[in-house]
């Protein structure tokens, strides 16, 4: 199986592949869609106004011409692909397409009204926080060779422990630490099951997910609520002085919840550790070719234990985001499948921290857009129905399926993940 994946990435056969055709068709469709939005969804003379809370109007565009322009750009890109051959400029085409489509959608949505751009970006970043943390958990596990579909469960445990311990100690930070620790403990369970007992890693992950739903709800009903420990409150946004006063960038980056800062710091740290230290090199070798690592004296299973537990600690923080960052109390299954979106982000990002972050931002944007849409209720042209928010919520899942199916670019998981390592 792995061989097959590698084949595709190695030998970029010249000529038309199904993938190229798909991407080109996608571009034509997106371009056409934008043109339709422009022609039927906007009035001539409508202005899309982008604002900032402090600065007021940033800029405003005449929506119809803008949409026409962007639609044409999209079609032009598709045409260029057809004309110049598919191999040309492949890498940034997808990205350009995504940005174009997203921006066109925004212009259309805010046509005739205003849109708070920094607010939107900040909402995106906030929504991306748990996704990125979860994705980094998955990344650490999988790079070392342990499949982790229990990100959801670990985050849910984290969310629960956050509430419980924040209320017990009456200190949100204690809650955050406890959340991280319980996430790590659950990762420890996953690690012991899949490394020591060689349980199939997908089964082991499923166990943790089931356990998380049951145990947190059980404990919440039986312990937290009777003891009145269920409302510790939420973190306030921490404002970093001076930096937060920078226009536009300031409120986006420097006025956030602690979890967001932790996420940004961890992002850099994890990326550095995994790709630029000997430790990271060994860890990746454990996922790619554990026997090779073993023959040069790397303790494969110890490496895997460490990676998985660290991953769990990070996922726990991601869980705390839901309870201590957003709601301030524990709700059943409050992670709402975001752990699986995090898994999707990890795959989407090709097992790279910054790739995963980019994917998380994309998914976070879909989320922010969906919230915005519930307020603006834009109506699709021609068929005249509002866009159901559920469809935007589906986007991460659909995109992930498209990516793992290899229709728009290949991702390559660590070669030996999912296989228990046995010394000979």
């Amino acid at each position: 199986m792995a061989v097959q994946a590698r084949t595709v990435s190695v030998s970029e056969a010249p000529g038309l592949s199904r993938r190229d055709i798909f991407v080109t068709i996608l571009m034509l469709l997106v371009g056409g869609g934008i043109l339709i939005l422009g022609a039927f969804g906007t009035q001539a003379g409508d202005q899309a106004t982008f604002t900032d809370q402090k600065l007021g109007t940033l800029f405003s565009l005449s929506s119809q011409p803008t949409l026409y322009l962007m639609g044409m750009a999209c079609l032009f890109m598709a045409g260029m692909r057809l004309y110049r051959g598919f191999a040309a400029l492949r890498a940034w085409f997808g990205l350009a397409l995504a940005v174009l489509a997203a921006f066109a959608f925004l212009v259309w949505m805010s046509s005739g009204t205003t849109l708070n751009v920094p607010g939107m970006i900040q909402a995106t970043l906030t929504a991306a926080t748990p996704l990125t943390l979860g994705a980094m958990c998955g990344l650490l596990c999988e790079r070392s060779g342990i499949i982790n579909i229990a990100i959801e469960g670990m985050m849910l445990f984290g969310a629960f422990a956050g509430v419980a311990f924040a209320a017990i100690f009456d200190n949100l930070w204690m809650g955050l630490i406890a959340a991280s620790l319980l996430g790590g403990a659950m990762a420890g369970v996953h690690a012991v099951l899949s490394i020591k007992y060689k349980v199939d890693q997908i089964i082991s992950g499923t166990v943790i997910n089931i356990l998380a739903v049951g145990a947190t709800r059980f404990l919440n009903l039986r312990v937290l609520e009777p003891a009145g420990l269920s409302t510790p409150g939420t973190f306030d946004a921490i404002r970093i002085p001076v930096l937060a006063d920078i226009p536009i960038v300031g409120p986006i980056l420097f006025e956030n919840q602690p979890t967001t800062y932790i996420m940004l710091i961890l992002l850099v740290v994890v990326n550095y550790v995994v790709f630029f230290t000997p430790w990271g090199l060994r860890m990746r070798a454990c996922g790619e070719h554990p026997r090779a690592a073993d023959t040069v004296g790397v303790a494969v299973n110890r490496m895997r234990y460490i990676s998985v537990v660290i991953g769990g600690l990070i996922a726990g923080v991601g869980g705390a985001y839901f309870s201590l960052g957003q709601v301030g109390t524990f709700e059943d299954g409050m992670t709402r499948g975001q752990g699986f979106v995090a898994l999707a982000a990890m795959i989407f990002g090709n097992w790279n921290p910054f790739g995963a972050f980019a994917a998380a931002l994309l998914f976070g944007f879909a989320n922010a857009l969906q919230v915005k849409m519930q307020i603006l209720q834009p109506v699709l042209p021609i068929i005249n129905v509002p866009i159901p928010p559920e469809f935007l919520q589906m986007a991460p899942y659909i995109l992930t399926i498209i990516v793992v199916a290899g229709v728009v670019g290949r991702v390559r998981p660590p070669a030996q993940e999912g296989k228990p390592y046995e010394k000979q």
Partner: protein
Amino acid sequence: MTEERSAGLAARIAALPLWVRLVALAVLVGVPVLLSKWLVLILLIALGLWPITVLVGLVGLALFSIPRGGWPWMRSWLGARLRDLAIPLLSIFTALVIGALVIMFTDAEVYAALSSGQIVYALRVGIQNVAVAYGALYEGAFGNPSDILEAIGRALGGEGLDPILRAVRGPSDSMVQSVPYIFAGLAVALGFRAGLFNIGAEGQIGIGWIAAVIVGFSFRGLPMIIHLPLAIVVGAIAGGLWAAIAGFLRARTGAHEVITTIMLNYISFRLSEWLLCGPLEFTRGTCRTQEIAESAYLPRFLSHPVTLHWGFVLALAAAVAVGWFLFKTTWGYELRTVGANPNAARYGGMSVTRTWVLAMFLSGCLAGLAGVSQGLGISHNAALGFQAGYGFDAIALALLGKSHPAGVVAAAFIFGVLRAGAARMQSVAGVPTEIVQIIQALVIVFIAAPAIIRAIYRFRERRREDIEAEMAVFSRGWGA
């Protein structure tokens, strides 16, 4: 010996003229259908009074063993059964014990007693709590034996069936709960056999459920004989097609089914949210469809409060069909071969990709039927948040039943018992039903890692080959 005899019997049956065989078949099917009400009642009573049933069974076995050498034969027969059952039974037992500890140590009174130093008192309260909780669990799942006996007495005294029906509500609930479990467990087990990990049963259940309910309420005025099968088939096929997406992607592009089914799950959740709170919503604000027409109801055997419906028979039939399909047909053989070694399957001239799509489709059909049985048999509509985790528990069922239909049915029954009992446990003892989920998760752990159970009970390590065979589930990455 028995094999020879049955072979002889089969030959003799085959020698009969066709019309005789057809008549015999009709009688064999028709009589139980006509008598279904009574048969089900007997079954429920037997379940409620299961110690007596077991005793009767043992006596029967003893009688059966007499011509075969008596006790030694019986002992080896029982021994063989028990050896296979040791790990599963001990797993369940251990999980229940841990569940009891969880109940004990999450009780405020116990903590209060402990903190004031009354350790003995705390223990007593704890044990009392557990006894009350598990007592309620038992009663919810099997009914109260003395009530059942009393009700039988009153029925014989001419007071009618109502007391019995009330008394066997527990066993009935257990069976009702096990119906979707059987379907969903078979779905995952069939996938396992083909080497596919269908985590998406949850979503397929939902899709099947909604599809069946849509058929159920859209065609009013159809006769039941058309409407009910139509709803069932549409529900099954809807679930099957939903799952086949994952099978198709696996076959065509190599996308790992674990990821695609997880993602399809969430797509289906959002889709059903939209459908149920949008186009299909009947009364605004309820996120629920309208009731299905009565002609699409899966009929119930008995009247209230016994809700056991024909879905149960359907589920057992599905189990038989899956077993027969897997072990007695060429497609089943292909499916098992592909699951055990796709390279060898390819080498044997099988189409691995076609088998994957087919297996996923069938698996989805079975999962869809789990939704169908709930939608047409119990709820008669579809409402938001209706899947209730059957699909995820199904993974445990398939493991517990070693992907064998008979094993899955047994495991499904155990889970049904737990679920039925949990409802009562919550109302009587105030222990949240989620304790059952914890117990189920523990059961999966112990089944998947039998080494833990062996360590706890100091089992002899089994032969290496057996262990290897046990481990041969799916240890592979989800590459391409």
